[in-house]
């Protein structure tokens, strides 16, 4: 179901078959691990087995001596890069942390931290050789829970990390790398005005992005010093920059070929393998491929932060929020640099709260370095805030939907971190929820309950480049730099087709390597259909401008006399659609090539509301999802099927996060469930169909009103499900995941009045 935007479109809103579809359903699509040049060698990485350890010595001689081994490396083979901070568009990265994470130097900071690597004629020999490398460790005390890592006596990960608080730095080194604080209005006064105040504390386990394709790379370091890298990356240019910076070579010496990518969700922006494969290749004199093992993907990449959050909200009898207070502690893993900022900015982002205080801490501990995961930091914050909103609604005796409608953020609402929202679609989402079939269908049966929760993600713009080459028949080859993870070739091509009056199929979109297109930021931040789509629109307008000038000669009129309506050019009796005019112009004169670069500097502000029905097996604590509806403002939904796909996929990742997914550490800081067997992502048999309602509140910052949609859908599910569990059995879950053992325990305590 789609609530229609006023303006009529010819291509936008239709559901053409994606351009790369045929390759992907026939097994022809080439992912990084599928690129296998004849001379290729295989790499394998040796990883640290301790949660925290000093590396005293590494002896690679036995590995080097083995038959079939071509090269061996350690961190000593990487340049010692300084603390320079590189801007990756989507956030920044400290290069020394990046380098030390790729190969540990003096200290290994988490189990799975890479310490050495081998290239051999096949992966089995590389593995045997890696296991023959002798590493002498001095195990150190470790810490894997954020609140423990904040204690004064906690094992210190870095003696050169200090607490940065508003640009000021602590005297003593600390695991706490960042302290943030936002205040708006007078919180104390706000709570005094409240008739009802609810305060709760929440714990959240570390979770992983869980993309099905493991990290993979093929690197070829030529004798001339030029490096070609085939990568599974969300951003070829970001990958190129990180690789070049870590290896200290000029950007022009590195070419990154973005292969088809098997999922990313934020976890394939930072690099892990590229410099290692490159150096192994330089030493071996041939291309080297590394494919990460699944357990290494869990133990050494991603994940997204475990957290502790306390939220306090106050409201008047008539349901108006008067004050909010939040205290957040987010882990950043082995190095500083995590998701605290967005967590703090999102915790109250759905509501108009006149008086608010947010206090946040980012903490290093012995886990892999935290990475973005779909609306990074927002899901944790929403779990806390939306659970308290639900409690508040219960106290006030009104429905959570009504409470949200009374306080929903809208155009002009000032967020606690300061900025004021432009036109946003949250109110429309809540209206759509209120009038949805799901919300209006009574739920019957024992131990069943309905929950609702909302969520927000900024969505960003950043930089994109496209080039449009017109063929002699008026079809267009569209060259772009945005890796296509979920059908963006098509959603971008459709925007060009719309402006030019062509069909989606008339456009031939190609994602090319870093030598063949202008700089383009990552496929992430919900930006690709929005920003690269905007570039495609602008490139189309560029073509129309050029064609107008040349049509003026053809039609013996002034360029400004030529009208373009629905892609059709017309002037003093002459008329030609794009194909006709392009064919005509091709016969005489220069070929037509359009181009555009954009850098929209705005958030696309995506709001969503989820409704879920659950049934709880009170004997076992197991939750079954009976029905699920995702409502989200997409701005103009370019390709509704793929918008629905984003909504459904994000919701199901959120369901997994809510119910079963977690990093399970034993007492020694060892992850005990680093496999798809025990890290329990939902299977098809765990779920119902996921219904979607697309709200279309046009984005004022895009020519077609498009908003980013990819991230918001993961934000509401854990809270929505917690609220549903509460309505089913009266038990408030304050810890994620709400796994059967945990829920069963809570049920027991509830029964014992505990």
């Amino acid at each position, binding site marked *: 179901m789609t609530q229609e935007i006023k303006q009529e479109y010819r291509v936008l809103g239709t559901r053409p078959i994606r351009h790369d579809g045929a390759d992907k359903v026939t097994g022809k699509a080439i992912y990084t691990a599928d690129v296998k040049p004849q001379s290729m060698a295989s790499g394998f990485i040796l990883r640290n087995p301790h949660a925290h350890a000093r590396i005293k010595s590494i002896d690679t001689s036995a590995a080097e001596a083995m038959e079939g081994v071509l090269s061996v490396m350690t961190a000593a083979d990487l340049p010692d890069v300084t603390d320079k901070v590189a801007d990756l568009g989507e956030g*920044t990265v400290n290069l020394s942390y990046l380098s030390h994470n790729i190969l540990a130097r003096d200290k290994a900071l988490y189990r799975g931290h890479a310490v050495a690597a081998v290239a051999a004629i096949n992966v089995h020999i590389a593995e045997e050789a890696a296991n023959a490398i002798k590493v002498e460790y001095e195990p150190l005390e470790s810490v894997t829970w954020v609140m423990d890592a904040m204690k004064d006596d906690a094992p210190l990960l870095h003696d050169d990390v200090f607490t940065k608080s508003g*640009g000021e730095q602590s005297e003593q080194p600390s695991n706490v790398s960042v302290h943030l604080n936002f205040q708006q209005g007078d919180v104390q006064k706000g709570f005094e005005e409240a008739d009802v105040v609810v305060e709760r504390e929440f714990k959240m386990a570390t979770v992983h992005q869980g993309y099905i394709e493991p990290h993979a790379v093929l690197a070829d370091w030529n004798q001339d010093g030029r490096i070609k890298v085939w990568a599974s990356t969300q951003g070829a240019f970001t990958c190129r920059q990180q690789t070049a910076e870590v290896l200290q070579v000029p950007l022009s010496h590195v070419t990154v070929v973005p292969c088809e990518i098997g999922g990313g969700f*934020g976890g394939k922006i930072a690099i892990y393998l590229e410099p290692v494969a490159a150096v192994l290749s330089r030493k071996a004199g041939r291309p080297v491929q590394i494919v990460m093992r699944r357990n290494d993907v869990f133990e050494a990449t991603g994940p997204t932060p475990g957290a502790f959050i306390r939220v306090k909200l106050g409201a008047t009898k008539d349901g108006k929020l008067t004050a909010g207070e939040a205290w957040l502690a987010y882990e950043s893993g082995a190095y500083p640099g995590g998701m605290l900022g967005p967590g703090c900015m999102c915790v109250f982002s759905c509501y108009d709260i006149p008086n608010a205080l947010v206090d946040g801490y980012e903490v290093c501990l012995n886990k892999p370095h935290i990475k973005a995961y*779909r609306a990074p930091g927002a899901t944790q914050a929403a779990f806390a805030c939306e659970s308290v909103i639900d409690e508040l609604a219960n106290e006030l005796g009104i429905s959570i939907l009504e409470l949200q409608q009374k306080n929903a953020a809208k155009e002009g609402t000032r967020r606690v971190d300061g*900025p004021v929202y432009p036109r946003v679609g949250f109110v429309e989402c809540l209206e759509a929820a209120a009038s949805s079939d799901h919300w209006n269908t009574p739920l019957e049966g024992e131990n069943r309950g309905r929950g609702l929760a909302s969520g927000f993600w900024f969505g960003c713009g950043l930089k994109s480049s496209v080039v449009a080459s017109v063929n002699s028949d008026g079809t267009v080859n569209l060259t772009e730099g945005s890796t296509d993870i979920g059908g963006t070739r098509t959603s971008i091509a459709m925007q060009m087709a719309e402006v030019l009056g062509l069909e989606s199929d008339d456009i031939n979109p190609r994602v090319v390597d870093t030598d063949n297109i202008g700089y383009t930021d990552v496929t*992430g931040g919900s930006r690709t259909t929005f920003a690269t789509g905007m570039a495609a629109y602008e490139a189309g307008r560029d073509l129309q401008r050029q064609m107008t000038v040349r049509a003026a000669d053809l039609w013996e009129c002034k360029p400004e006399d030529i009208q373009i309506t629905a892609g059709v050019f017309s002037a003093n009796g002459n008329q030609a659609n794009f194909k006709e005019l392009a064919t005509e112009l091709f016969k005489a004169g220069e070929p037509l090539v359009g181009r555009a670069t954009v850098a929209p500097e705005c958030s696309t502000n995506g709001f969503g509301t989820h409704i879920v029905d659950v049934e709880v097996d009170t004997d076992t604590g197991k939750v079954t999802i009976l029905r699920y509806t995702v409502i989200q403002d997409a701005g103009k939904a370019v390709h509704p099927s793929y918008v629905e796909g984003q909504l459904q996929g994000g919701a199901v990742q959120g369901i997994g996060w809510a119910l079963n997914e977690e990093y399970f550490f034993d007492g020694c800081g060892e992850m005990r469930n680093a496999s798809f067997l025990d890290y329990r992502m939902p299977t098809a048999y765990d779920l119902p169909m996921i219904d979607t309602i697309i709200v279309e509140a046009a984005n004022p910052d895009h020519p077609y009103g498009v908003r980013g949609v990819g991230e918001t859908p993961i934000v509401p599910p854990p809270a929505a499900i917690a609220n549903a569990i509460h309505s089913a059995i009266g038990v408030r879950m304050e810890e994620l995941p709400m796994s059967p053992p945990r829920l069963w325990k809570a049920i027991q305590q509830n029964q014992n009045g505990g």
Partner: protein
Amino acid sequence: MTLVFIPTQLRQLTNGVEQLELDVRNVRQVIEQLETRFPGIKERLCEGDELSPSIQVCVGQTLSSRGMITKVAADSEVHFLPAIGGG
């Protein structure tokens, strides 16, 4: 005049002043004028002569990637926010 919002954590430098109006054309002028009024505030917002990489400047609803040279209109708001990345 441009309305400049002081980040909460810098308000001890401004004696609690939360926002103030400045006559400025770009972010560099914002920071220079803040520094003359509230000495020490620049080093909290900048690394050398550039904005700190952990900070993103927001003018009205625009999250600028242009740092110090970001233009600010007379009627606009200026905020200094934590830099964020998405998935």
